[in-house]
């Protein structure tokens, strides 16, 4: 087979495929079965904030970045126009 490979002039790619899969699946399996943390977080933030302000559920973005040293949780909530009045009446 190595003679054939010489003719083809390229290295076997299957070992690369195997290695990539092993790494990927080890990672994916560890995440499986856990509740989706971000979705849960988003739902709960939405529930709390919308107790006080009328919110568009699509305008709530929760994003997590995992860095080497620092991980950040970014919560971006866009308030609709007239939120002040909603505040006043709620308060």
């Amino acid at each position, binding site marked *: 087979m190595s003679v054939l490979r010489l003719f083809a002039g390229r290295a076997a*790619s299957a070992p690369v*495929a195997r290695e*990539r*899969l092993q790494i990927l699946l080890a990672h994916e399996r560890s995440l499986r079965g856990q509740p989706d943390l971000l979705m849960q977080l988003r739902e709960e933030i939405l529930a709390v904030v919308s107790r006080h302000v009328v919110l568009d559920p699509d305008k709530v973005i929760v994003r997590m970045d995992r860095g080497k040293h620092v991980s950040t949780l970014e919560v971006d909530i866009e308030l609709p126009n007239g939120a002040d009045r909603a505040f006043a009446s709620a308060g």
Partner: protein
Amino acid sequence: MAKVLVVTSGKGGVGKTTTTAAMGAALAQAGEKVVVVDFDVGLRNLDLVLGAERRVVFDLINVVHGVAKLPQALIRDKRLENLWLLPASQTKDKDALTEDGVGRVITELRKTFDWVVCDSPAGIERGAMLAMRYADEAIIVTNPEVSSVRDSDRIIGMLDSKTVRAENGERVEKHILITRYDPGRAARGEMLSIDDVLEILATPLLGIVPESQDVLRASNVGCPVTLNSPASAPARAYHDAMRRLLGEEVEMQIPSERKGLMNLLLGRRAA
């Protein structure tokens, strides 16, 4: 005792419908009473591969919704008296199937048949979940290719958590069926080997179906490959897989096709 077998895979185009038809026919040829059920609502194809597309009057959704009785929707194969088809509907409404409805149909099918073979739609959504929901055994159809192996791993996870058996603390018996295997390319290191796939997925092997023109020819004419060209390499592979499914010990081999001289000279790249 009736067994519910789901033929599944994460990725599309790996050969689920071909496998359902071939295994269904092989089981029926072995004397088992078999019904193959198409769960691919919206994109039904099992009827076409079995050559029954013009005989569909009622379908799975009609039965689930009580529009038709089960016997009205079952189509008996013209070639094998032990083989029946319950076709899928082409409705666009993906939510037309309910878990309860599917459960009732499966329960009723169990009374009449030895094997209820469910052809799953691709993906990990509701349709695929319903197809595997009541399964006792599963065939995970996998190509020796990274995306197919990854998606199979995901499906194995679902079989272990989202089925009725899993929820009752029992196991769904799982089997890997490797299709579109090209021994030449695997030997040259261009394709994941059988051992690679099995090691990664850690699930027992049911069979190896080689890449072959006979598979396409069989679906072109609407006949399961095990019936259309029984001597062909894929048909032999499916027959062996069927015998293993029935509990026989069959030595695992990669059925190869006789290659012409030109193919040999071309290093079998022609496929």
